[in-house]
């Protein structure tokens, strides 16, 4: 248990051996957001998109075929669960694994779109997600090698110095996984249908980005 200026007091912790998940006010809020959107993905029905023809009165309602949607919902739920794991993780390597799972499920969500333009954007996005695993796990490896530990509780408080490169690699990896600053590519992706499921990409990337910023300030 600890009490830090950014993190706030630790409310409770769930030990999984050396990996101790903990909830502070900050991480608990992120976790609840992820849980809320996962519940939305489970409960809500997919939206039906409407194509409006300009200059006329024509409005077409598109219908999304079933199996495609089921897969998208499955991936959205998996993405939400991974985001929930990442937000409360108390271990840097564990956080990295959950983050890469978020990236992979995001590829799954966009890959289930049938639109050619969306798939082209998703391809580029997938390449970035795959590359991003190198800086992500590289950063975790540098942390382990230079400090000898991976637990955020041990590293917190500035008693053990974590090198700048490791932090930069971690942020870069999360940026690539969640595409947090690359909203350009996401704008293409959001042309895909199925609103509640596509939203999960944005929510999860936002949450893991907020979490990694908190982690690098804490350690």
């Amino acid at each position, binding site marked *: 248990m600890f009490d830090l200026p950014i993190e706030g007091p630790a409310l409770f912790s769930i*030990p*999984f*051996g*050396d*990996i*101790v998940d903990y909830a502070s006010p900050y991480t608990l809020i992120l976790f609840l957001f992820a849980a809320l959107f996962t519940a939305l993905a489970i409960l809500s029905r997919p939206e039906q998109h409407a194509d409006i023809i300009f200059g006329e009165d024509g409005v077409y309602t598109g219908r999304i075929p079933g199996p495609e949607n089921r*897969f998208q919902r*499955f*991936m959205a739920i*998996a993405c939400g669960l*991974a985001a929930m*794991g990442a937000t409360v993780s108390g*271990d840097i*390597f*564990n956080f990295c*694994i*959950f983050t*890469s*799972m978020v990236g*992979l*499920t995001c*590829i*799954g969500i966009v*890959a*289930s779109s049938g639109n050619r333009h969306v798939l*082209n*954007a998703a391809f*580029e*996005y997938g*390449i*970035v997600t795959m*590359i*991003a695993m*190198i*800086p992500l796990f590289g950063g975790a490896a*540098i942390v*382990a*090698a*230079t*400090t*000898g*530990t*991976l*637990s955020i509780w*041990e590293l917190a408080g500035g008693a053990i110095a974590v*090198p*700048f*490169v490791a932090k*930069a*690699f971690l942020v*870069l990896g999360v*940026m*690539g996984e969640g595409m947090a600053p*690359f909203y*350009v*590519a996401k704008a*293409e992706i959001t042309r895909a249908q199925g609103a509640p499921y596509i939203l999960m990409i944005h929510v999860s990337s936002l949450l893991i980005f907020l979490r990694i910023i908190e982690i690098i300030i804490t350690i």
Partner: protein
Amino acid sequence: MREREIREGHGSMVSRISRFISDFDNLVPAYALMIACVALIGLLTLPLLTYEPDQIYPKTLNPSSPLNPYDRGGAPFTAAEVHAQYPENAPYIGYVTGYLTPLSRFFAATTQYMGTTIVAHPGGIIDEILYYTRGLDTIVETSILFVAFAVASFLYRRREE
């Protein structure tokens, strides 16, 4: 209209950058450039990084052991010396790694060169760190594999429709 667009893209620095990244084909080069910059900083600050000798998960190689590259020490039913970050969360620490099935004990007693076979067959060496103190990592890794197979099979099956 076209000329105006081009002029917009060559205005200030910000508009030039935003025009560059608005094309998603430039996404991978932009990301690669960022990685290259950070890697360069990493290479320049490499002399400042020092290896911490006091690792929580130390690894030693004992070539004379029949379990050679995977030997974590310990005999069955006795506790081995295994480090953990939070020993209070792992009451059975040290007992897990020494476990061998009768078949793997036979292999270990017979030959020196079956270490990989013993670790790869079911009930072989149960790595304390992989399956006990850091078991959650292993579970999530398996989930990642499952998700990856799900995506791949979905994409493969879609071709037929």
